[in-house]
């Protein structure tokens, strides 16, 4: 499979419906622990999952408008990751140095992508709808390896971790895999936006079988 080298750094960490407006979730990308959250404005943010104050995972935090508030002491961070309020000291203007490390975060192909490199985001044509994300317990096989486990008619790479594939029975879909170090990996699947219940269900079963084959092969 050909890989667009300029896009190696972008990792698809979740389907876009995994984090809803006004909520935060935890994702692992490689060895990085990441808080993925979406403001009320719908914009997705990917941050290091650690409050600079006491190290609390920010994915446990509360989204207040378009800001994130840490669960532990209620410190509030704006969309750039800069601390804007410390409730224990309401008269204090937080120093600008209190800032969460942020990742670049974009949405394309019903997936949320993150990168810590300054390069162009994956360009994915068309409109897509999220189908399933499945956890694989074993260390991540790469995408070409995964595709050996299933019949495909055609493959168009989107990045190191995702491809637009056409399958004999399912038709066209985006298959993505994202590595989670010792935690295994996630398989993500998105379908063309026109997909309805039956094709979503069918693709979900297909993805489940694909996972079983990958996990069984790893056991042997």
């Amino acid at each position, binding site marked *: 499979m050909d890989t667009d080298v300029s896009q190696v750094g972008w990792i698809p960490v979740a389907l876009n419906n995994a984090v809803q407006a006004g909520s935060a979730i935890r994702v692992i990308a490689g060895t990085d*622990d990441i808080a993925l959250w979406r403001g009320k404005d719908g914009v997705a943010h990917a941050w290091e*999952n*650690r409050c*600079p104050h*006491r*190290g*609390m*995972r920010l994915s*446990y935090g509360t989204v207040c408008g378009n800001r994130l508030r*840490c*669960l*532990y*002491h*209620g410190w509030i961070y704006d969309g750039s990751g800069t601390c804007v309020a410390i*409730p*224990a*000291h*309401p008269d204090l203007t937080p*120093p600008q*140095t*209190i*800032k969460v490390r942020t990742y670049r975060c974009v949405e394309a192909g019903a997936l949320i992508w993150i990168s810590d490199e300054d390069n162009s985001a994956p360009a994915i044509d068309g409109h897509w709808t999220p189908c399933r994300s499945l956890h694989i317990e074993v260390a991540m096989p790469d995408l070409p390896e995964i595709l050996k486990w299933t019949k495909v008619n055609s493959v168009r790479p989107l990045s190191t971790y995702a491809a637009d594939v056409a399958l004999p029975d399912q038709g066209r879909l985006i298959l993505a895999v994202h590595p989670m170090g010792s935690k295994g990996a996630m398989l993500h699947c998105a379908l063309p936006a026109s997909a309805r219940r039956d094709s979503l269900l069918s693709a979900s079963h297909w993805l489940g079988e694909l996972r079983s084959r990958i996990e069984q092969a790893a056991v042997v």
Partner: protein
Amino acid sequence: MTPDPFTLSHWYAIGRIEDFPNGYKGEHRILSTDIAVSHHGELNVTGPEGSMGVQTRYGHVWTTLSRDPRPLYNMPEFEEEGRRLVTAGAIAVRCSGLRAVENFLDMAHFPFVHTGILGVEEHAEVEKYDVSMGAAGDEIWATKCRFFQPMAAAAAEGGQVIEYRYRVAHPYSTILYKTCPLRDGHWDLIGLFIQPTEEDECIVHSFVLVFDEHNTDTDLLHFQQNIFLQDRMVLENQVPNKLPIDPRWEMPTRAVKSHGVTWSTTRFEKVA
């Protein structure tokens, strides 16, 4: 990593007295070391280098890896008439015991972690308090701590500003003295005796020692466990789970540094 001399020099609680009845035999762990505890007429604790010190005090069994331990600190309140002791059992947490002490000494999290019980978001401000070393130089006291609490104790009704004193009696033992809602001029005690099992794991033995005529022991137990399990979710989600050493950090870290504590801590280049 071998524990530093200061960490090694202390007594550690390993359970409630009633958890070691006559005939008891079991394996335990402190400071990354296996110990065996047995009770045949008297309590015996055996470590890698043979028999170890053991004593029962404050409702708990204590032991030490040191041949020449510092004396276990005094809590004269345990002798006072009319107080009730409720021990809340051994609760394991995946974090440095020092993190658990840090959390216990910190009022600023009350409105956010113990919302509606120990704090409310409208009263999140922490006013200045005094910090001093104990007479022997190996204890730390924080006094004149004041905080608004909507339901400060199982026996308290309605919100009030509560005065607290915090005492760090040793790196893994901390006691909170709070104004007794029922008896003027007296303090209720709540404390943690932490059993550090690994650098990033501990078992927390907690107690309340209070004047309270309204609640049953089980009421007090539920109140205490409810609060501590709210903290446990935080403690298991702090990164890193050992205590970072950083000069800007407050009381517990300063105490740790002044005694050369390294075990269960981690160097952290940049916090903010």
